[in-house]
Structures are given as structure tokens and as C-alpha cells.
């Protein structure tokens, strides 16, 4: 840490206390950063719905982590003979069983892993691609922009689900390919956002100032532009997670996503669809799970946006 002649004289609040975090004269990088995070957190925490969203997502993480402990039955092997299509509340089967005699609750619990896998992988693949394409295109402009945006446009002009369908059809159904297909169709909006945002910064004075420091374009993009796009991208990705879950479920529903006996929620709805009239729970339960989780992501993303970007929330 640097020497701090003036700061030392003032009474500094106890480290990590609320005052310390909220101090508008932080004395160290860490305090500044934590203070910033704390403010974001406070803004976030003011929004009850956002907290509900966060709670849902944490719950999802916990369920996924402790699936082995939580699920009362094997998610894959059922009891076709004795326990087929039992209604919710049947003995030993809280949410009932499906047509293979498998415990729906256990399948939902294990399915949370797949859901997480999908959203995390898609986010990891698509967001950085979009970020790089968008910032480079927006910052460099000219030919690079034209070419990159053409490619983006082509992907945008494709009907998203159809492209995903086509890709999955081409690569063969399966959760990995579904993830890949969703990722391939998800990055263009991120590129658009990152580009639009970059364009607003590109001619701003603080970027001009960095240029006048002699910074190379690469440095400007990496260290000055990207960090600015990241928060809106995080917000967007969080909000998109719901969409990703829905697309994955849609693919699963059309039989092109995760494959049996994997307890993917969309595929579960698809197989439950056949019993919707008499054994409604087979399709209703996984649909409900999807609804809750994507609602969680949406609430979280909404809250994040308000917290990270008060302007956009209209404050």
C-alpha cells in the first residue's frame, strides 16, 4: 500500500464496517473496490424481487450441488411395473412418477445440473465472443466493423430457433450440441450491445484521453472499453439465461436437446406431454421448475441492471 499522509490523520472507520465501505475517501484499492461492490449490493438489495431472484438461483446452485443427497430416488432407473405415473403425494414420490416409473422430484433435482450446465456453458462461450466481436467492431470501425457486422447480421437474420434446430439436426441431438447451437445463436445480440456501447464511448473524452496517453488500440479495447461493456453484458447475459433455459427446453421438447434418460426439464415436458390430460403432473412439474428458475434469472438480471446501471433503469 502507498503511504498515506493525509488519510492517516483522519479517523478511518473500522475496516469492513459499513462506514468503511461507504466512505467516499477510500484509502486503498481494496477499499475502493469493495466500497463500490457494496454500493452495488445495497442498490441491489433494496429491490426485494431481485433478492427473491438471487435466492432462487442460490437454491438452484445448492440443489445442483447436493443432488445426490437431496434426491430420494435414482433419476434414471424407475420402477416401470409398480410405480408408473403415480400422482404427486404418493408414498415415497412427493411429486409423483413419470411413465417409466421414475421419481419426478429426483429427476427435477438432477435436471438442475443440466440446466446450470447449459446456461453456464452458453454464457461462457457466447458472451466473450460477443464482447470481442462487438468491441473490436465498434472501436476499430471501418472495414473490420463492416465485415464483423455483416456476419453478425447474417446470424441475426436467421430465425434463432430454426438455426439452433438446424445445427442440432446437423450435429446430432444431444445436450452438448444443443449448448453449442444455442451459443452460436446467442452471441450476435451481445456483439450488437457491446458494439453499440463501444460506439458511445469511442468518441468520448475519456477514451480520447487514454489515446493521448499513447495507448495502443488493443490496450484501449482490453483495458478501457471492455470493462465498460462488461456490466451491461452481465446484465444482458443474466436476463438471457432465462431465454437460454427456454431455448434448451424447447430443443429438448422437440427431441433435439438433452436425450433420455437425462432428466432435462424440457425433454421431461415433452415426454409428459403425452399424459397431460390425465397425469398432468408429469409435464407440469418440470415446466414449473423451468418457470421458477428462469423467473429467478430474470429477477436477478433485472435487479442487477438496476444496480449496475441506474441510468437505464430510469433513475
Amino acid at each position, binding site marked *: 500500500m502507498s503511504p498515506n499522509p493525509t488519510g492517516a490523520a483522519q479517523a478511518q472507520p473500522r475496516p469492513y464496517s459499513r462506514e468503511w465501505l461507504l466512505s467516499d475517501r477510500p484509502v486503498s484499492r481494496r477499499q475502493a473496490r469493495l466500497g463500490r461492490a457494496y454500493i452495488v449490493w445495497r442498490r441491489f438489495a433494496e429491490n426485494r*424481487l431481485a433478492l427473491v431472484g438471487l435466492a432462487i438461483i442460490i437454491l438452484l446452485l445448492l440443489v445442483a450441488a447436493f443432488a445426490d443427497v437431496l434426491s430420494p430416488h435414482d433419476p434414471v432407473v424407475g420402477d416401470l411395473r409398480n410405480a408408473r405415473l403415480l400422482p404427486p403425494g404418493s408414498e415415497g414420490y412427493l411429486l409423483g412418477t413419470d411413465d417409466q416409473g421414475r421419481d419426478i422430484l429426483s429427476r427435477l433435482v438432477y435436471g438442475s445440473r443440466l440446466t446450470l450446465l447449459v446456461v453456464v456453458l452458453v454464457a461462457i462461450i457466447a458472451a466473450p465472443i460477443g464482447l470481442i466481436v462487438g468491441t473490436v467492431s465498434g472501436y476499430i470501425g471501418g472495414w473490420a466493423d463492416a465485415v464483423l457486422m*455483416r*456476419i453478425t*447480421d*447474417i446470424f*441475426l*437474420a*436467421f*430465425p*434463432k*430457433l*430454426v*438455426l439452433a*434446430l*438446424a*445445427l442440432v*439436426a*446437423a*450435429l*446430432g441431438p444431444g445436450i452438448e450440441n444443443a449448448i453449442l447451437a444455442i451459443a452460436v445463436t446467442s452471441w450476435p445480440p451481445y456483439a450488437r450491445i457491446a458494439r453499440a456501447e463501444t460506439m458511445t464511448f469511442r468518441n468520448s473524452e475519456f477514451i480520447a484521453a487514454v489515446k493521448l496517453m499513447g495507448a495502443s488500440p488493443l490496450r484501449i479495447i482490453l483495458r478501457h472499453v471492455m470493462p465498460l461493456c462488461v456490466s451491461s453484458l452481465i446484465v444482458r447475459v443474466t*436476463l438471457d439465461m*432465462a*431465454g437460454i433455459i*427456454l431455448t434448451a*427446453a*424447447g430443443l429438448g*421438447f*422437440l427431441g433435439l436437446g438433452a436425450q433420455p434418460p437425462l432428466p432435462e426439464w*424440457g425433454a421431461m*415436458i415433452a415426454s409428459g*406431454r403425452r399424459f*397431460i*390430460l390425465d397425469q*398432468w403432473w408429469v*409435464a*407440469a412439474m418440470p*415446466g414449473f421448475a*423451468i*418457470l421458477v428458475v*428462469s*423467473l429467478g*434469472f*430474470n*429477477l436477478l438480471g*433485472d435487479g442487477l441492471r438496476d444496480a449496475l446501471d441506474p441510468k*437505464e*433503469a*430510469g433513475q
Partner: protein
Amino acid sequence: MALSDTSAVTRRNRRRASSAAMGLLRFAVTTLTTVFGLLVVTFFIGRVIPIDPVLAIVGDRAPAHVVERTRIELGLNLPLYQQFFIYVEQALSGNFGTSVLTTNPVFEDIKRVFPATIELATIGTLIGAILGIPLGVLAAVKRGSIADQVVRVIGLIGYSVPIFWLGLLSLVLFYAKLRWVAYPGRIDVVYEYTFTSTTGFFLFDAAWQGQWDVFRDVFRHVILPASLLGYFSLAYISRMTRSFMLNELSQEYIVAARAKGLSETRIIWFHALRNAAVPLVTVIALSYAGLLEGSVLTETIFSWPGLGLYITNSLQNADMNAVLGGTLVIGAVFVGINIFSDLLYRTLDPRTRSR
């Protein structure tokens, strides 16, 4: 000085002329590259797809030698680049070929199925806009109130619910249990013979021909899927309306309007909404485009004979002509809607009109 002035002027004029030409050129290039990109992508998907396209033509049970012969007839034994040339050449001459699945020219098929999708998406968007805009405005005006929270949650659920699931449940409720709506398809078989549609838009045709019983029937078919899509677009539209309205309401000209003594109603519905409408048309157009291309699942659930279902079916049968045609049409519509919303944006926003 005079000399350099004229040079500056000619230079300026040249730039201006070239910028207009550039604009056109850019537009043409955009459209062309997009279409070309669609061609390339569909072609390669069509080739790597692990379905033998021949099977789609000769059927599952064809003996081996028939399969082989058809393969050669289709030119599938040629090198890939040659196939691609043939493919591009045909596509450029407007010949999307024949759908092996329906044995009709793809173009004919699309002419038949696309109106179904348009009808559905249009009604959906209408529902979404007619309900979504007032809700969004209400939420923005009563920001932070219970009403705002309710609108917000309604919207978020719309974003979060798997549409096919909601579709299934609502079918069970409204069709199976309550019998309020009809299912499946666009029209009851009864009317297959008493009603002919000239435009492909059944509601419109029925009204035009004054066949109100048909109209009622078609309406009973379309209302549930359209409402679902409408809910989906309502979620999006209300949310965007809210955010645009919040933005407009915080502008100085709103203060100025208040300073003029205008009533809140006029300020909200006339001044703020009129300004929010500018970005809102883009949002609505995008959501419309989204419904046009994104109704695959809804069409599947409701056996709606539209483009989404057509493409999905074709895809699953490696009927690549049909997939290509459908995709290109959607791509073109997407580009078209973008241009249209751009135009609308220009007419709504005087700042983009130059005099």
C-alpha cells in the same frame, strides 16, 4: 482563396453525391451478403446433416438400388463445390426447387403456410401492443407502486415461462375442460368446403366474404395460440414501454410541458408516449419479427400449419429445399421488417428527417 474555395465545394459535393450512392450500395451489399450468408449456412447444414436427403424422397422402406439411383439423379454424388454452385444458381434464379416432403414447389408451399404464420403473429402482436403499451405506461407513471410491481411480474413471467408448456396447459384448460376455444389447425373441417381463402388470411377473408360463422370458427382457432404469443410480446412490449417512458418522463421537455400547464394525461399520453413511440416501433417490429420466426413451438403445439412448423418438419426430414426457402423468406422478412421499422422510425422522429 477563391480557387481553394471552389475545390472545397466540389469536394464537398462529390462527397455528398458519393455518400448517397454509398448508402444505397451499403444497403444492397447488406441485403446481398445476408442472403448469401443464409445460402451458405443452409447449404452446409444441409450437407452435414446426418440424414440422407435421398431417404426423404424415396421413403424409409425403399430398396438400396432405388436409393443409389436417386442419389445420382439429385447430383449428390458431385463434388461439394459443384453442388454449391448449382444450389446458388438455382436459388438466385428464384427457384427454391420442390419440397420432397409435400412434392409442391417450395415457393407454393410458402405462399400457403406463411399467411398462417403472419395471421398468428399479427394478432399476437396486436394483443401484445394493445395491452402492453398501456401497462408499460401505467408502470412507468406509477413507478415503484404496486401496479408497477404487478406489471413487472406479469412481464417477467412472460419472459420466463416455457411457451410450449403454457400452451399445453392452456389447451387442457380452455379446450379440453372449458371448450372455449377450438383446436387444432386454423379452421374446422366443416368449413373446408364452404370456405375458400383467397389471400391466405382466413380471418380477413371470412370477414370480407361476410361468412361470419366461418369468422367465428377461425377466431376460435386462432385466439388461443395468438393470445399466447400475445402474452409473450406483451411481456416484452410493456417492459420496453416502461423503460422508454421512464426515460422520456425524466426529460426536460416534460418539465417544460408541465410549466405550460398541460394536464398529466396529455403530458403522458401525448408528449411522453409520442416520443417513446419512436424507439417503441422498433421494439414492436422486432417483436413482430420474433413472432414470425419464433412461433415454431407454438405452431407445433397447436398444429398450426404455418411456416415454423413447415421448416421444422422439413428439417427433420432433410428436405433442404424447403428449409432453405423457408429460411430465406424469414431472413428476407426480417431484413424487410428492419427496413420498415427504420422507415417508420424516420417518419416518427423528425430528427432523422433532413430538410
